[in-house]
């Protein structure tokens, strides 16, 4: 969709260069080997998260498959069901690797979903502020400023204290924490775009306000926001893990990586390190992969660095 849209906007350019902007974007992106590694890593993490029931040796939440006698097995030991606990097992005899695959589903799902909702709300608020200006603008931006002057974890704590626990509640908290970043980014680029000639032309054609905002202004404001999305998804995943680790985020029925790590914390002092260690590594891989991709996207999408 993206490719065809851009070709339609600039057919002349495409014809002259023989390549679509999207392809150039891909080529630019691939220039950094580290970023490609990040993308591949993220794809792998996302794949095991989506395919968790197929690739896990065990369903860690099916009690029939668990055996308490196999609790706290060190990494690499064989299980009675015939597979190996490559990363060890936890106190209930759950395979850590399977637990990580299922946990990634929840962590990535919550992180990405909350980032997308915040993205939608932030875009709406930012575009409204930039386009209409005046009192509405200063009202929205004042709220954004005040919110950004508090650390994310404090705001999340306030919300969770008010709302209580649950998947939906933590998503609300994560969205509230994040929307302000999107709003500020969209507003600043929309303020620049608003005075450009194509917007004026759209006005002269008497296009409706919604059409100008969403079909003309919005697509041109997106590149910097896309970078914010990657950073925010990583933030959201880390924040959710932190809150779940503290026991005030997700309930035990949704075992995200943070909860897995919290579960292993009790056994850490007795030297049973793998219950906390490996879920943490998985969390780290997911966050670093997203950050690597975001870093390169920032360079690729930055018009000042374009050749």
């Amino acid at each position: 969709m993206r490719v065809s849209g851009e070709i339609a906007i600039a057919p002349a350019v495409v014809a002259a260069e023989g390549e679509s902007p999207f392809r150039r974007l891909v080529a630019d992106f691939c220039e950094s080997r580290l970023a490609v590694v990040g993308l591949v890593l993220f794809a792998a993490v996302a794949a095991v998260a989506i395919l968790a029931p197929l690739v896990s040796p065990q369903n860690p939440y099916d009690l029939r498959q668990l055996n308490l006698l196999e609790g706290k097995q060190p990494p690499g030991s064989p299980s009675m069901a015939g597979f190996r606990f490559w990363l060890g097992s936890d106190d209930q005899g759950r395979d850590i690797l399977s637990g990580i695959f299922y946990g990634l589903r929840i962590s990535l799902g919550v992180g990405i979903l909350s980032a997308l909702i915040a993205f939608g709300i932030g875009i709406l608020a930012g575009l409204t502020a930039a386009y209409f200006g005046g009192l509405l603008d200063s009202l929205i931006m004042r709220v954004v400023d005040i919110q950004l002057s508090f650390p994310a974890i404090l705001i999340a704590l306030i919300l969770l204290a008010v709302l209580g626990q649950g998947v939906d509640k933590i998503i609300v908290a994560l969205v509230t924490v994040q929307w302000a970043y999107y709003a500020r980014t969209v507003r600043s680029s929309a303020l620049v775009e608003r005075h450009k000639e194509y917007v004026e032309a759209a006005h002269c054609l008497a296009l409706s306000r919604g059409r100008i905002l969403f079909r003309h202004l919005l697509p041109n404001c997106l590149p910097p926001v896309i970078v914010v999305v990657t950073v925010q998804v990583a933030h959201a995943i880390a924040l959710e893990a932190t809150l779940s680790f503290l026991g005030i985020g997700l309930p035990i029925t949704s075992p995200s990586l943070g909860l897995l790590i919290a579960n292993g914390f009790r056994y850490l002092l007795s030297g049973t390190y793998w219950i906390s260690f490996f879920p943490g590594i998985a969390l780290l891989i997911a966050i670093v992969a997203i950050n690597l991709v975001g870093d390169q996207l920032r360079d690729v999408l930055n018009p000042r660095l374009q050749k």
Partner: protein
Amino acid sequence: MTVFLIRRLLQSVAVLFVMSLIVFAGVYAIGNPVDILISPEADQGERERAIRALGLDLPLHQQYLVFLRKAVTGNLGESFVFSEPALGLILKRMPATLELALAAMVLAVVVGIPLGMWTGLYPGAPSSRTIMVGSILGFSLPTFWVGLMLIMVFAVMLGWLPSTGRGQTGTVLGVTSSIFTVDGLRHLVLPAFNLALFRIALIIRLTRAGVRETLLQDFVKYARAKGLRERRVIFVHVLKNILIPVLTVLGLELGGVIAFAVVTETIFAWPGMGKLLVDSFNHLDRPVIVAYLLLMVCMFIAINFLVDALYSVLDPRVRIVTRGT
């Protein structure tokens, strides 16, 4: 200048008012205040007495006024678990948290600025690259997991440092702190480093960017042309100029450090107000949660106001810009 400060002060009061409304709405309107403020173990008679005492039979706007009047006088309810005033309970734990936060800030400055200057002065050196990769890790690693790994390596595997708790405290010149005893220091090292890690990474990046920018400026060239020794150029001329942004960020981060101490204190069983908060969440001790959050909000508003005020004193441009809009 005075006008700016007064306007800024008014804004702070407005924010405080809005926050009190949010907390009030959260506790009294969305949730059932009877459940939130009265212990679930209370019997019917106690409940009714408490409802009357808390004014829960009044209309909502009057309840808000009662809540506000109590909050202003520092009466934020009594803890279910400790049967003590919630605010006093938190204030009692505050020194431990402040000690941890300050130790983390000092560590961040002492480690971050020299490393950042090194990477700024020799950006191509292998050691600089290693430091920069380390700083990326410092940004990406979740604080709580780093804390666990610190315990695992230094307390469980190597056995060098104690894993949890606050050590002995000593009193020097009326200040009681664990930095005055060896045992206290040994307990402080791991949590302080854990809390500082993110800020170390931040300061390395800031300092590096600052050094690289400043080195290109004319006054550095001039200082060199004047024949000053390189050491003087770097430690006097360059350092002075990069300190302003670094100190600003540090001032703003102080609040963040205190807020994030919640995580570090939980892992290291540090008896500060962050750990109290998490315990209160687990015991559903809501008056303490409300008191903690209100206290933190007040503190943040105060910190933000002070930073803004200091800024307008130090940098006249801020005042002009605010007058323009």
